[in-house]
């Protein structure tokens, strides 16, 4: 974790943040800070509000309360230095696009509205694919990718935005077990270069192994701290409403 100089505002500040969909409360008065250079996993059962929290940080859902990015109110996510990687299953992998076409989308914010991708944009896209070790996929059709490859492509699309903060929703979902640790290593490498990494995760084993800070969500923040503190038997039992002995054997 990077040391925060006292005069540098946190990367993310959430103040009394609530998200509602009609009568359904997805997030209820959540407040927390994420320091620059932190790696944070948000865990919790389905419906805990993990995705809603990430979407609130990227301006995709209406909220009450405040979202501050680097000390300023959130505008368009890219303009605030935030890159968003949505759940892979929500994208249209059946479309006739190449990997380069997808990654170059991330450059949209670097050029004039309605302008078309330039050769510089395409070169930047290829650089990011190379950084993630998948330059061989540049001209591959997106429908031919494995889960791990597709996730790296989405990560490259985020990286080409040159972000301060990357927000990832379930990045390990559907990824081959053999590719999970490679993908986690990529995230840690990005973090070493100063990027703040925020992930919503279902896989608490991955969260415990790779993330320095865990935030347990159940519409509110139930626990916030290192894995040993949040993902112990009692913490898992509280989060998933399990009997304590069962949770301890899982942990």
């Amino acid at each position, binding site marked *: 974790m990077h040391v925060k100089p006292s005069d540098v505002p946190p990367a993310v500040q959430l103040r009394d943040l609530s998200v509602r969909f009609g009568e359904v409360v*997805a997030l209820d008065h959540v407040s927390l800070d994420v320091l620059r250079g932190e790696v944070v996993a948000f865990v919790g059962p*389905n*419906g*805990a*509000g*993990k*995705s*809603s929290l990430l*979407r609130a940080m*990227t*301006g*995709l859902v209406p909220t009450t309360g405040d979202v501050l990015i680097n000390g300023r109110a959130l505008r*368009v*996510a*890219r*303009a605030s230095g*935030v*890159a*968003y*990687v*949505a*759940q892979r*299953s*929500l*994208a*249209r992998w059946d*479309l*006739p*696009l*190449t990997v380069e*076409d*997808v990654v*170059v*989308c*991330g450059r*949209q*914010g670097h050029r004039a*509205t*309605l302008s*078309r*991708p330039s050769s510089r944009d395409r070169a930047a896209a290829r650089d990011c694919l190379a950084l993630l070790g998948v330059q061989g996929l540049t001209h591959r*059709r997106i429908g031919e990718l*494995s*889960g791990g490859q597709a996730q790296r492509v989405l990560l490259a*699309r985020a990286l080409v*935005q040159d972000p301060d903060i990357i927000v990832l929703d*379930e990045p390990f*979902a*559907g*990824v*081959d077990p053999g590719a999970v640790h490679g993908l986690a290593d990529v995230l840690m490498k990005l973090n070493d270069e100063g990027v703040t990494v925020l992930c919503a995760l*279902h896989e608490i084993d991955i969260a415990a192994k790779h993330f320095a800070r865990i935030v347990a969500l159940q519409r509110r923040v139930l626990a916030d701290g290192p894995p040993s503190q949040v993902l112990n038997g009692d913490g898992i039992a509280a989060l998933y409403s399990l009997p304590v002995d069962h949770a301890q054997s899982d942990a």
Partner: protein
Amino acid sequence: MDLAAWILEPFSLSFMQRALVSGVAVGISAPVIGVWAVTKRLVYLTDGMSHAILAGVVAAAALGIAFTIGGVVVALLMAALVVFLVLRLGLPEDSAIGVVSQGLFAAGVVGATLLGDPRALAHILFGNPLTVTWPEVAAQGLLAIIVVAGCAWLAPAFAMAAFDPAHARTIGVRVGALDALLVISLALVVVIGLSTVGVLMCITLITAPAVAARLLTGSFTTAMLTASILGVLASIAGLLAAYHISWPVGPTIALIAIAEVALTSLIVLIRRGPAWRAQKAVTQERRREGVAHSGHSPRNSSE
């Protein structure tokens, strides 16, 4: 008569020349916008809109204003009503589209009947490019150029919004504005096609060449190019059939466009062969397993 004469001779006549330009304008613009309607899964909305636009055309005729204005206004009205029924009342999208489009279509039929000549109604429904005038052709050509140029220029933005709309929003792409632009363009194309294939057959020329092109090609650019070639071929063949064997123009163009899809499907099935189908089955199984491992479903993915 040799083949060249069979094809060229009809177009020495002035009314066939006008019909040819009109057919080419619709034959290019409808399939090009169709590629995006198919991609965004807006085919049923487009079908409904092509019916609903009858009300706008009839209203424009009654008010003495351009059909284009009436058509676009009703297309937007339909879109607004559908959005209202879906978002405010929670109706399923297809139900809302069905109710609104058929209501407007019925109003249009009643209005056209009250206005007088029932042949005019048949003309609007099924088209007849043999009666089109040069000013109408010029307007069709201009609108077609606007639609095609817009689609070609905005292709990367349309693709971005179609692939991952949530990400597109986070980088400042106005996905809602692009969707609105697409709906307006579809309305324009239906109006352009009014006199050539009619409002009922226009959906075929929007959808069928686009579907055939998606089967044959591997990028949006080549899909738009291929679809427009197939659309022009269908338009010209329809005109020739009308001239030589007296088939109705609009329905004949539609039938040829559908035949293009059938032929393309056959080619693709032969080209892919059993090995491709076996590989696809394996890929689909792996994807299903991946989704099952992730615990994802449309219900929990929108938590």
